[in-house]
């Protein structure tokens, strides 16, 4: 098919844009940039995904850097969303967020405060503390959080602009492990819910959207796929399909079969005799 990414996103977005903190996005797929073996490959995948918002990390500059991810995002009109990956305490995360604000010229931050570097699970106490501090400092805070409806409520209460629960631990590709909790978070939340982490393939992204999530954030499912560009395209379509299905309203699950063809007027074709 010949549709451009804009046409695909646009067909879906007409009248149904993603709005976070007053900013409108026609794509509901937020991408990460981690795990890509080359910047050229990353760029092709990001373009194919149709994303308009993409996370970056803050790391020490060093020699031998291959080009700049910053330039890559800018020339493709993709907004950079700095993260606080690698932070274990609220104070580290707050300082990293401030550095991200300076480097990327944005007060948006994907807030990550993990408890340890094995599970990479969010530390709820430090997370809420950092979120409160950053909101008070004028940041637009998008916290990576557990799939815990009560924690999601606390994060919204301190003024986060979106809630980003994990589907499964970072990098596992296990999909949405607790769909009931994700649905519960969606049902209660007055701010957008972004399914963040754990996506393995397109059906996972579609499921998250069918559950009512407003967007999906993923990185390694694309960057470490055998064909990242093709997987990026699959994710773009999956997010659109899932959103459409969510709005369309699925049929109720039934215990027994229900014929879809009329039962009246069948021919008498008893040929067994």
């Amino acid at each position, binding site marked *: 098919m010949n549709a451009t990414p804009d046409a695909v996103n646009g067909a879906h977005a007409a009248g149904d844009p993603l709005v976070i903190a007053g900013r409108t996005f026609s794509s509901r797929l937020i991408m990460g940039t981690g795990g*890509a073996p080359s910047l050229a490959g990353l760029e092709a995948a990001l373009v194919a995904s149709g994303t308009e918002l993409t996370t*970056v*990390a803050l790391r020490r500059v060093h*020699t031998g850097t291959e080009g*700049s991810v*910053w*330039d890559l995002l800018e020339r493709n009109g993709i907004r*950079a*969303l700095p993260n606080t990956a690698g932070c274990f305490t609220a104070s580290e995360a707050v300082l990293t967020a401030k550095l991200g604000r300076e480097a990327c010229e944005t007060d948006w931050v994907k807030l990550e405060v993990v408890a340890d570097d094995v599970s990479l699970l969010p530390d709820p106490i430090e997370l809420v503390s950092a979120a409160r501090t950053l909101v008070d400092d004028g940041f637009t805070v998008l916290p990576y959080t557990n799939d815990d409806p009560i924690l999601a409520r606390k994060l919204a209460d301190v003024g986060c602009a979106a809630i980003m629960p994990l589907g499964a631990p970072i990098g596992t590709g296990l999909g949405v492990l607790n769909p009931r909790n994700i649905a519960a978070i969606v049902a209660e939340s007055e701010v957008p819910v972004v399914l963040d982490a754990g996506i393995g393939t397109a059906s996972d992204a579609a499921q998250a959207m069918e559950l009512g999530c407003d967007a999906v954030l993923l990185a390694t499912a694309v960057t470490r796929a055998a064909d990242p560009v093709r997987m990026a395209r699959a994710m773009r379509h999956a997010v659109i399909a899932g959103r459409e299905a969510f709005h369309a309203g699925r049929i109720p699950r039934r215990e027994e079969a229900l014929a879809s063809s009329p039962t009246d007027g069948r021919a008498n074709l008893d040929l067994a005799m």
Partner: protein
Amino acid sequence: MTVSIIVNGDEVAFDRRPSVEDVVARALADVDGASGGRGIAVAVNSDVVPRSSWATTPVDTGDRVEILAATQGG
């Protein structure tokens, strides 16, 4: 008298007290694709120094300067 600054964990010697801008210029001289300092942020002793203050913020012996760039991640 040399001034020794800790830049991203490594000791770097300057002939006289540099500004943050001097330290950044030295550090980025060897970096490909550094975009002339765009996408870069600096902290001195764990305090962020805004770009607008780089030229006027002096750094002294023993100060720890972190120079970070937006990079792939997340």
